[in-house]
């Protein structure tokens, strides 16, 4: 290989690589480091570690107090558990809503499919915050949903949805729907429909053909969609903060409050480290799936 080509090829890799190392990977180590320090009333509000001279000095300064604190106060582990449960339930609900939509889109006449696709992507481009905010006006006790149902005579008392977990489920399903629809749609769209015809020709009922042919072939899309919803939903902050009540425990919100209200940087770092540990397995699975898709596309 000639030197010019060598240099350009190295630059193509090195520049983004270095950027991500500095701004994505290194910060995690800093988070980890600070999670081992102690809180102090100063700026930045923690006692630095690793400023002693000898190795032993450094190790003596490390403190696992923050992690001990996370296990002692039930607030934290309850928040972790409830985040994972809420995210899992929301992921299933999103799948149930998204699959028929994606299936309907894939079956649509090919002339309108690009338009439908654009309409699914469009909300993704509009602000997450605004879309969550839009639901406050709908779900409030005096909001539009209650008004509508009362005027239809279906209920007599205003609904108490806002500030409950139901509101969070609605918020997550709504906000993350495009992330579920898109991968399922692209899996279904690629599928050769003559496979279903072949199954029916060989004696399958339409329902049987769906479960034996269509659904298994759309499974990669379903799995990708579930990861794309579940992982960020576990650490979600905006939705529980705006739609959930004071009783709602979600770890993203806990981290935010720890950081902005209590100004306890070491504890919020410890919260982040544990959250990351919880998410490492699904993230690695997600990346493997991505790498496989990338490999298959080559």
């Amino acid at each position, binding site marked *: 290989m000639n030197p010019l080509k060598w240099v350009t090829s190295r630059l193509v890799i090195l520049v983004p690589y270095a*950027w991500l190392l500095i701004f994505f990977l290194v910060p995690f180590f800093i988070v980890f480091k600070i999670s081992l320090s102690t809180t102090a009333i100063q700026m930045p509000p923690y006692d630095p570690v690793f400023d002693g001279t000898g190795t032993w000095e450094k190790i003596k300064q490390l403190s696992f107090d923050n992690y001990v604190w996370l296990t002692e106060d039930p607030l934290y582990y309850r928040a972790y558990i409830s985040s994972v449960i809420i995210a899992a339930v929301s992921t299933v609900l999103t799948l149930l809503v998204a699959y028929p939509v994606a299936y309907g889109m894939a079956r*649509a006449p090919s002339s309108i499919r690009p338009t439908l696709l654009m309409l699914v992507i469009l909300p993704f481009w509009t602000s*997450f*915050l605004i879309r969550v905010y839009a639901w406050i*006006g709908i779900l409030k006790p005096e909001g539009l949903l209650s008004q509508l149902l009362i005027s239809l005579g279906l209920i007599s008392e205003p609904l108490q949805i806002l500030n409950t977990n139901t509101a969070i489920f609605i918020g997550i399903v709504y906000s993350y729907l495009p992330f579920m629809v898109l991968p399922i749609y692209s899996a279904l769209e690629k599928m050769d429909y003559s496979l279903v015809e072949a199954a029916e020709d060989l004696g399958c009922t339409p329902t049987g053909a769906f479960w034996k042919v269509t659904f298994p072939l759309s499974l990669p899309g379903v799995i990708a969609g579930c990861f794309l919803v579940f992982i960020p939903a576990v650490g979600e902050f*905006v939705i529980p903060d705006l739609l959930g009540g004071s009783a709602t425990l979600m770890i993203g919100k806990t981290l935010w409050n720890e950081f902005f209200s209590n100004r306890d940087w070491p504890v919020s770092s410890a919260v*982040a480290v544990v959250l990351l540990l919880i998410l490492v397995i699904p993230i690695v699975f997600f990346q493997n799936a991505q790498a496989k898709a990338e490999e298959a596309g080559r």
Partner: protein
Amino acid sequence: MNTTWSRFNILSVVVGFSFLYLPILILIIFSFNASKLVTVWGGFSTKWYVSLFSNQGIMDAAWVTIRVALLSASIATVLGTLAALALNRYTRFNGRMLFSGMVYAPLVMPEVITGLSLLLLFVAIGFDRGFWTVTLAHVTLTMCFVAVVVQSRLVTYDRSLDEAAMDLGATPVGTFFQVTLPVILPAVVSGWMLAFTLSLDDLVIASFTSGPGATTLPMKIYSQVRLGVTPEINAVSTIMIAFIATGVVIASIITKRQEVQRKRDERMAMAQP
């Protein structure tokens, strides 16, 4: 897939799309509400838009947001395109696994973690928080989205185009600028647009990494939402939605038209010997 569009299919699409769009539609409608209550219709009015433009705090935040978005999207597009090329062209290099991990992880990483970790980095290196820290943070997040968009285009890119250019005497750098980049440009442009809107919309990462004097529009909206729902927020949201939707719709109409024209050209071309 090519088959009949059953009633059930139509119904699911209609219901799904209503679910996606009704809340936004309601939000837009109530931004024109004369009443201060966002849930009771009190007649048509544009007064909230008027009061918006005299709200210096919101206007300042909007200006910061647009500057951050323009700058971060541009840097992210360069870095993201390089990252996509690295992933697509170099299948073997030391640390490729780590690299692709770092490209895909931010896509799903909870924003609170990314925001906190970037903040702690800026504090650790003694970087004053403000316009630049938000910009750097947004570059880091959005370059990964650009990389994914460009990478998915590169997968279908015919590598023999590059070989043909080199065969005809273009150097590798010349090949990139004369052939590769022009051909993948639509993907690069949509990567830029995605990066721009992600930066425009971001609340969590901006909240962590921003400092005094660099309040972005989502941060401003959030602090007002916490105080209560007002038609003014509906108005500013409507403007943001309209701004982005117009951009996206125009871009997709242009793409669609080009595609239709292209198909027509191809049909005509095939008709001749």
